[in-house]
């Protein structure tokens, strides 16, 4: 061990000295998926029997998670970006990373703008959107500036913040005037006219872990990656199913299409003796999930840019580069929210764009890696 480096080491964003363990990986997978659930709410699935589609979507997502975990536990995956260079070769990797980077940038912009839009609509109506976007981006950049390993470690604290909301939803179900008939019929024609849209939406709920292809070097070697990500996905499935059925019990299947963002509106009904209108606390708490996911996206993009523009051996991960990249992201977000994301129709449009993008990335990226691994092992043989 280099003794001098302990005291005077340069601040490194990509140092893999502290690694994450299995609990953190599971919660990370879960939190990355949950922001899609918050953005695309479940109202478009109009019938209670679509819950089986959610379970089906979860099972298919387990397959993709298995592919990702195989990649992360393989020798190439453990090296992170360098492993991708080994997999695809120099030129193709740069193209792949560039396309991936574009997708991540769009996702970052739309997700952060959507959260600010929700915040502005329900809670902070008097504040200008610019302030809210800046606050969100500052917290994302602050988390990202602590380094990749610390940003991944934050998933535990994010889960601790959000677990209170889950408990509140359970409390909601213990009201009077709750009847089980509201979730009937539970078995019905799943393949109705809404099937394709619903499947797309559900697949969008489970997307998110494709950002994790670069975190190979940050996982401890004794972690059973497949088991952790499996548990993370399972937690997501349970949350989605419970919440989906809960909205039907609470609203009824006929009222639900008229409610927007039931994830946020439901808590409005809870009332305690001392404190009421808890949704004024739960809506800001959702920011924790967004901070985590978008910080992971920002750091992955930073890594991709550094490896695209620089050489493979000596990446220029200086603070200056980080600041410039985060400034670019910030200005893109500000421009987007002030010009292109102002009305509700635009919000719906960009929500759909994000849905299609997430579905596309979640389907294609693990598939590409899987095919590349197969091709490589075929060539080796």
């Amino acid at each position, binding site marked *: 061990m280099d003794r001098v480096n302990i005291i005077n080491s340069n601040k490194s964003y990509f140092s893999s000295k502290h690694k994450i363990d299995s609990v953190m990986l599971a919660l990370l997978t879960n939190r990355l998926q949950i922001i899609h659930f918050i953005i695309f709410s479940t109202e478009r699935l109009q019938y209670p029997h679509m819950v089986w589609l959610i379970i089906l979507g979860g099972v298919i997502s387990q397959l993709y998670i298995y592919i990702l975990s195989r990649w992360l536990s393989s020798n190439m995956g453990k090296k992170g970006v360098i492993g991708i260079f080994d997999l695809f070769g120099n030129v193709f990797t740069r193209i792949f990373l560039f396309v991936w980077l574009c997708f991540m940038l769009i996702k970052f912009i739309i997700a952060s703008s959507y959260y600010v839009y929700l915040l502005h609509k329900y*809670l902070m109506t*008097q504040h200008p959107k610019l302030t809210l976007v800046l606050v969100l981006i500052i917290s994302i950049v602050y988390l990202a500036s602590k380094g990749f390993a610390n940003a991944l470690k934050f998933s535990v604290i994010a889960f601790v913040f959000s677990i209170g909301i889950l408990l509140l939803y359970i409390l909601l179900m213990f009201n009077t005037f709750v009847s089980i008939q509201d979730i009937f*019929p539970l078995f*019905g024609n799943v393949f109705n006219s809404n099937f394709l849209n619903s499947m797309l939406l559900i697949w969008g709920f489970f997307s998110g872990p494709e950002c994790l292809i670069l975190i190979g070097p940050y996982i401890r070697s004794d972690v059973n990656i497949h088991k952790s990500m499996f548990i993370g996905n399972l937690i997501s499935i349970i949350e989605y199913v419970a919440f989906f059925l809960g909205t039907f019990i609470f609203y009824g299947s006929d009222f639900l299409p008229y409610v927007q963002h039931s994830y946020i509106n439901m808590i409005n009904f809870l009332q305690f003796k001392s404190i009421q*209108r808890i949704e004024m606390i739960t809506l800001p708490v959702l920011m924790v999930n967004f901070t985590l996911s978008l910080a992971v996206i920002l750091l992955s993009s930073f890594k991709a840019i550094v490896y695209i523009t620089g050489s493979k051996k000596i990446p220029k991960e200086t603070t*200056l580069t980080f*600041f410039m990249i985060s400034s670019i992201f910030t200005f893109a977000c500000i421009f987007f929210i002030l010009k292109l994301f102002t009305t509700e129709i635009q919000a719906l449009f960009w929500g759909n764009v994000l849905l299609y993008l997430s579905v596309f990335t979640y389907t294609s990226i693990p598939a590409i890696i899987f095919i590349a691994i197969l091709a490589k092992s075929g060539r080796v043989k």
Partner: protein
Amino acid sequence: MSFLKRYFIFTMLVCLFLTGCTKHRIPNKNYIENIAPSVLFYIRPTDDDNIEVTTIVPPIKKEERKIIKSEDRTLTGAILKLNANYFREVKTGQLRIVFIDKKLAEQGLFDVINTFFRDPSISQRLYLAVVEGDMESFLNTTLKENIDIFLYEKMNFNESQGEILTQNLHYFLKSYYSTYEDPYLPFYKIENNKLVYSGIAVFNNDALTDTLTLKEERIFRLLHPLVKYHKVLPITICDIILLNTKTTTKIDFSNSYNDVNVSVKLSSHLGEYKDGMKSDIHENYLKLEDRIQSSLEQEAKELVNKLQKANSDCLGIGRYTKTLTQKPFNGDTWKDKWSSLEFNIQFEMTFDDLGVSKCTKNK
């Protein structure tokens, strides 16, 4: 200074100068002493098709309370016009209870309710009630007693006790949108300058069609599948009071959905009984049970007829047509079915407890 620090300071200075370019919007802080959060609204229609909103401000003890009202074509317009009558801004964030005049309820409530629903600052637990009579003079006379706070506490108490029905915004809208139910609201009357609970207002979609009396309201609560506990239940025919009644309602439909069997099981304590039953209650309680059952069945039949005539399924019976695998009625089809349903109501009464004393036989 290092490059990073200089870069940072430069960026901050640039941002500082750039703030001069934006349109300044001063956030509208809700300093609690500068706003008048109103707790009670009373809404009624005026002669020239406007909506008039009345409220009491301020809910502060030290200042003089007064009633302000304004009218406009729309509800929001009327609420905003209230500000013209007072030196603080009237805010709807703490709105807790809304009284709606019966005439407005007969015309259709959806627009009013929808406005409350779409405002994100109003809670979903807003209590709604229909009132008939001169509410304004009632509010005027009771102004000194903080009537709005009293009414809210009363509604809160009613909701927790369950004896007097309350309804809030969320459940009203849920039953309005549902194909299987219709909404209902508690109905109050102003008599001798007092606000008196007089039953239930029954709606067909969003228009008020009928009101149930207090007697009918008791049977309504007995029949309602989701109301499971009644503290006090008077049976008028036999002058009997039943205490701590627990009810279980079962609803079964025939295959063609033309007949419905509603069977209600009651188990309660015998509270007070009159009519000189000098013989031992422990011997005669079976007869008593039969008498109570038959009287309840009679009243229930009358109630259901009344509801069918008013074309309003407030009991939510239609919900029970849904089973695990099928949902036979969609859209308005249940509404068409409701008037022609044949009801077959049975009550089954058991006494849990006949009282403390043991009646000795007369010698």
